[in-house]
C-alpha cells in the first residue's frame, strides 16, 4: 500500500505539472522550454557589482484552481497578461520541508529545509542568502533588506551560524510592527490588524533581532512618522504597506538584494473563500506594481532579476484530512507543490519548464547571479536561468 500511495502522489504531481503547462500555453501564450526566446539584454553583459535581485514570496500559497487553472485566471490578470509572458516559469517547485510560513520562508532564504519552530522568534540555523551575499561580496548592511509581515519574521535576516550570523545579515523591516510603534498612544481598535497571524490567530511572538526601528524611518527612508501614518491610512492591506516600504527602500537605498514576503493571501486560514480570492487579486496587482517599480527606478532598470514564488501550496479539495483551500496541513502533493517565475535581463521570456525542482534551489541560483557561494545550501543552481 505504501508504494501505491507513493505512486498516487507521483501521478498527481505529474498531472499537476502537465495541467499547469497546458494552462499557461493556452492562457498566456507560453512556449515550452525547448523554444528559447532570449531576452535581448544578457545578464552576462552586466557587471556583477551592478546586478540586483528582488525576491517576492507569498506567505500563504495559492492553488492552481484559484490562479493558473482556466477558472482561476480571472483572479490573476496581471500575472497572466503582463508578467508571465516576460518570464521563465517553473511549474513544479516542490517544498519538502515544514509547511509553516516562517520556517518555509527561512528555508527559502537559506537553501536548507529548516526545522525551527514556526511560531517562535528564532533565527534560521543555516546561513541566509543575505549573509552569503554580504560576507562573500563584502557588501554593507544597507545592501540587503527584508520586508516582511510581523509575525515572527523579524529573525529572518540572519542565522545563528557561527561562521556567519550577527552583523552579516539583512536589515529587516516589519511594516506592521512599525505601524504599531507609529500609532502608539492612540486608543484605537486595530490590535487585530497588528497582531494577526493567520496560521494562529491572535498570536504574535515577542520581537527580537535586527528589526528596523521607527526612528530609522526618518534617517534611512526619509519618511516622517506622520507621513508614514498618513500614507498607511490610504492603504487597504498590510501587503500594500509592505510594497510601499519596499518601493521607498528602492528609491532611498537601492539595495542589491531585496526580499519581500507578502502575507495577505493567508487570510484563507480564517475560512472565508472570498477573502482568500481578494488576497490573490491584491497580490497579483502588487507583483505587477513591483515589476513596474523595478523598470522605472534608474538604479534597478535593466539590471535586476525578479523572482516571484509562493512558499508552498494549500491543501487539495480531495484530501479528506484537510479542509480544502483553508489550510496547508496535510502535506499532500498540492500543498507541497508550487511555482516560480523569474524576469529580467538574460532570462528567457515566455518559456515554461515543468521539470521538478526544489524550493531550496533558489539560494544557489541567486548565488550564481550575484556572484557569491552559498556553501552550506542544499539546493542546486537552476540551469535554465544561468
Amino acid at each position: 500500500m505504501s508504494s501505491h500511495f507513493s505512486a498516487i502522489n507521483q501521478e498527481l504531481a505529474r498531472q499537476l505539472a502537465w495541467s499547469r503547462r497546458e494552462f499557461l500555453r493556452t492562457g498566456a501564450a507560453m512556449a515550452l522550454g525547448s523554444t528559447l526566446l532570449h531576452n535581448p539584454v544578457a545578464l552576462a553583459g552586466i557587471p556583477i557589482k551592478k546586478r540586483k535581485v528582488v525576491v517576492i514570496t507569498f506567505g500563504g500559497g495559492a492553488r492552481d484552481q484559484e490562479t493558473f487553472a482556466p477558472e482561476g485566471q480571472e483572479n490573476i490578470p496581471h500575472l497572466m497578461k503582463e508578467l508571465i509572458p516576460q518570464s521563465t516559469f517553473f511549474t513544479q517547485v516542490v517544498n519538502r520541508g515544514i509547511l509553516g510560513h516562517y520556517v518555509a520562508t527561512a528555508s527559502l532564504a537559506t537553501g536548507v529545509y529548516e526545522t525551527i519552530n514556526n511560531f517562535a522568534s528564532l533565527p534560521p540555523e543555516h546561513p541566509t542568502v543575505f549573509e552569503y551575499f554580504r560576507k562573500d561580496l563584502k557588501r554593507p548592511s544597507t545592501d540587503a533588506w527584508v520586508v516582511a509581515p510581523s509575525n515572527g519574521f523579524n529573525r529572518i535576516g540572519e542565522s545563528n551560524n557561527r561562521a556567519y550570523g550577527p552583523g552579516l545579515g539583512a536589515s529587516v523591516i516589519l511594516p506592521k510592527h512599525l505601524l504599531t510603534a507609529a500609532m502608539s498612544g492612540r486608543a484605537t481598535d486595530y490590535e487585530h490588524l497588528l497582531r494577526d497571524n493567520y496560521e494562529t490567530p491572535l498570536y504574535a511572538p515577542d520581537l527580537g533581532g535586527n528589526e528596523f526601528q521607527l526612528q530609522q524611518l526618518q534617517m534611512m527612508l526619509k519618511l516622517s512618522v506622520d507621513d508614514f501614518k498618513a500614507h498607511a491610512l490610504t492603504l487597504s492591506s498590510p501587503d500594500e504597506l509592505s510594497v510601499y516600504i519596499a518601493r521607498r527602500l528602492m528609491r532611498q537605498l537601492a539595495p542589491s538584494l531585496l526580499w519581500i514576503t507578502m502575507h495577505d493571501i493567508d487570510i484563507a486560514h480564517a475560512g472565508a473563500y472570498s477573502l482568500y480570492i481578494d488576497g490573490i487579486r491584491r497580490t497579483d496587482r502588487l507583483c505587477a506594481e513591483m515589476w513596474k517599480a523595478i523598470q522605472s527606478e534608474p538604479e534597478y532598470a535593466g539590471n535586476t532579476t525578479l523572482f516571484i514564488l509562493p512558499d508552498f501550496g494549500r491543501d487539495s479539495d480531495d484530501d479528506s484530512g484537510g479542509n480544502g483551500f483553508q489550510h496547508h496541513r496535510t502535506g499532500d502533493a498540492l500543498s507541497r507543490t508550487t511555482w516560480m517565475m523569474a524576469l529580467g535581463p538574460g532570462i528567457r521570456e515566455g518559456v515554461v519548464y515543468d521539470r521538478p525542482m526544489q524550493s531550496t534551489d533558489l539560494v544557489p541560483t541567486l548565488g550564481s547571479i550575484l556572484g557569491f557561494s552559498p556553501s552550506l545550501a542544499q539546493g542546486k543552481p537552476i540551469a535554465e536561468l544561468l
Partner: protein
Amino acid sequence: MLPRDLRPEQLSGYPPEARKLVTNYIAALQRLPLSFLPSLLRESIEYDYKFPVERKALERELANLNSLSVEQLQEWLQGFAEIHLSAALENFDWINAPAQFVEQLSSYLWTTHQLDAFRTAAVAYADRLRAAAPPEPPSAPRLGITVVGQGVTSYDQPLFRKLRAHGAYYSHVNPENGLRVLLDAVAARARAHPTPYAHWYIDGGKEVEHDTALTTVSYAALEPARAALLGKMRAEIDRPGMGPEALRTRLAQLRPADLAFSNGDEVLDRFRIKMLTEGSGTQIFSTTFAQWTAREALRRAQPLTLLVRFAARQRQKPMNELLAATLEATELDPVGSLVDADIAAYYNWLNQQRLPGANQSSFLVWFEGNTQALVIGPGVPRGTSSTSATTLSQLLSTLA
C-alpha cells in the same frame, strides 16, 4: 512510558464509559506502537461524548485490533513501528493527554521529515481497516441541502460552478416559501427515520422555526459562548510565555460549563463548543462556522439528512478603516458571504460523498429567495441545465 506498560489503574482520569472500553481492550492496546496508540486513545477518551455512529466505528476498530494475531498486527502497523520518536515523546503523559501528545507528535513528524512516512502508514492502515471492518451503510439514502445567499437580492456571477458538472442546474425555480419547503422535507425525513443525531439543521445565523426532531446548531445561539471564548482567548494570549501550542491546548480543554453553555445534551453541547474551540475562523466568520460545523457533523455524526443555511458574515474591514478606528456597528458582507457559501456548498457535497452509501446520496443547493438551484443524485443527469419553471418541491421529488 511505552504502550506495553499501560495498566487499567492509569485510566482513572477517563470518563466512565471510556474507561470501561479501554480496559476491555487493554491487552490489544499494549501491543500497539507509541506512534499509533495515543491517536486511538484520543478518540477513546471522548467515547462518552461521541455520536452513536462514532461509537460503533471505534468499537469496530478496537475489536478488529483485538482479533489480529501478533504477526498480523506487525504487518498492519509496520509503518507506524518504523517511525522514530524522541525520548520527550516517550516520557509524555500520553495516557491522560493523548490529544496534546498527538499535537506534539505532529510537530515532531514535520521537524524530522517523517510526515510522509506517517501519512503512508496511516493511509495503509485506514485502507486495511475499511476492508476488514467496513462501515455500516446508512439506513436510508442521504440527503444534503445547502442554502446560500441570505440577504443578497441579485448576483450576476455564475453560481455553483464546481457542482454543475455533477448534477442539473435550474435557473427558474419558484422561491416562494422555499426555506419552509426544505425544512418540512427535512422534518419529514426525521419522522420517517427516527434515529438520534441523524437529521441536522445548521444555521450560520439565527435558526428559523423547525421541527424539534432535528439536531440543531446555530451561530446566533452560540453568541454568548462565542463572546466568552473570545474573552478567554484574549486573557490567555496576554499571559507571559503563552504560545500557539499552549493556547490551542487550553482551548481544547474548555468544556461547555467553562463558557456557561448548557442545553442538557452533553454530547451535542460538546460538539457545539468544539466548533468554536477547534475550528479556525469559526469564532470570527459565520460562514466559516457553518461550513466547518457541516464538515464535522458529516465526518462525526454521519447524518442521513443535513440542511445547512448560510447567513451573512461580518465584513472584514480594510486596513485603513481599522486604523481610522471609527466606532461603527458591525457591518455585514452579504455578497462576500455568498461567495464563501458557494464554495462551502461544494465542500458540503464532497464531504457527504465521503460517507458510506455515496452512490445513493442526493444533494440540493439553492440561492435563497432567488431562482437558482442545483440538484445531484443517482437519477439526475450530470452537467445539464434547465430554464423550465419549477419548484423546490419538484426538485426534491426528483431526488426521492
